[in-house]
C-alpha cells in the first residue's frame, strides 16, 4: 500500500520512531492515565496502519499523528456520553470517564515533578496543550497552532499567557 510516498512499512517505522512522544501526548490527552493512553494509542496505530487514518502530506507526520491522537481522544470522550455513560456507571458502579493516574504510578514520580504536573494542570486547557507541545514535544508554536487547529496569533497568546501563569504558580510552589 502506497500513500503519498509512505508505504505501510515506512508508516510503521515512523510510528515506532515517534512512539515515546506519541505516548506522552496520548497520556496528556487522557489526563495522565497510562492505561487509557495505551488503549487510545493502540486504536490510533491500528487506524493508521490499516489505512482508516490517512496521512495527506500537508503537514509533518508528527503534527498529523498528534492531531489524530487528539481527535481520537476527543471522540472517545464524546462517545462515552453517547453510550449513556451515566447509565453504565449506575449499572457497573465504575467511574471510568477519565481515569486519574494510578496511585502506584504517582508514588513513583518525584515530588518535584508531581508538583510541576499539578501546577501545569491548573492552567487553561489550551495553554497546557501549547506548552506541552512546545516544551515537551519540541514543536514550534506554529506547528502547535496547526495541530490544534487554531491561528498562530491565538497560539502565541496561549503560549505567552501559559508561561506567565505557570511561572506564577511555580513561584507559589517555590519550584523554580
Amino acid at each position, binding site marked *: 500500500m502506497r500513500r503519498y510516498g509512505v508505504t505501510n512499512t515506512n508508516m510503521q517505522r515512523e*510510528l*515506532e520512531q515517534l*512512539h*515515546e512522544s506519541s*505516548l*506522552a501526548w496520548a*497520556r496528556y490527552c487522557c489526563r495522565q492515565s*497510562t492505561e487509557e493512553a*495505551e*488503549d487510545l*494509542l*493502540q486504536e490510533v*496505530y*491500528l487506524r493508521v*496502519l490499516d489505512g482508516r487514518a490517512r496521512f495527506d502530506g500537508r503537514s509533518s507526520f508528527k503534527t498529523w499523528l498528534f492531531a489524530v491522537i487528539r481527535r481520537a481522544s476527543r471522540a472517545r470522550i464524546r462517545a462515552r456520553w*453517547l*453510550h*449513556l455513560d451515566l*447509565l*453504565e456507571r449506575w449499572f457497573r458502579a465504575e467511574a471510568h470517564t477519565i481515569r486519574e493516574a494510578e496511585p502506584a*504510578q504517582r508514588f*513513583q*514520580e*518525584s515530588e*518535584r*515533578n508531581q508538583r*510541576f*504536573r499539578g501546577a501545569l494542570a491548573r492552567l487553561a486547557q489550551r495553554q497546557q496543550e501549547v*506548552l*506541552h507541545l512546545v*516544551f*515537551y514535544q519540541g514543536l514550534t508554536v506554529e506547528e502547535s497552532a496547526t495541530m490544534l487547529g487554531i491561528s498562530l496569533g491565538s497560539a502565541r497568546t496561549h503560549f505567552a499567557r501559559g*508561561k506567565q501563569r*505557570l*511561572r506564577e504558580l*511555580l513561584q507559589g510552589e517555590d*519550584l*523554580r
Partner: protein
Amino acid sequence: MSDDADLRENFASLRIEDLRRVPSFTQVVGRSRPASRPDFRLAAGVLCVLAALVAGPALWQSRARAPASKGAATSLTDWRSPTDFLLSTAGLQTWRTVPVIGEPLPGDPGAFLHFNDTGPAPRAGREHS
C-alpha cells in the same frame, strides 16, 4: 529563548521520568483490547420499543372509550373560565337588575327599596343675587 530555560528544565525532567515507563511499540499494538462493553444505546432502544408496545395499545383503547361529544372542540362562546365562580359574589343580582320601588331587592327578600323621607332635603341650587 533563554528566558524559558527554567520551564524547559522542568519539562525535560518530566520527559525523563515518563521515558522510564514507556512500553514498547509492539506491546502497545499487540495489547489485548479491553472487553467490549455492552451496547447501552441498543439496550435503550429496545427499552423504548418495549415501552411503546405496552403503552401504545393502552392509550389507543382509552381514547376509543372516550365519548365522541367530549372529543368535539368546545365552542368559544360556550367556554367558561374555570375560575368563573370567584366572580359570583353575594348580592350579585342587585347589580344586574333594576330595582323596583316597593318590591324586595332580588336575592334579599327582607329588604325594600324606599325613600327616606326624614333624610336631608336636597340641596337647593346656589342663589345668585
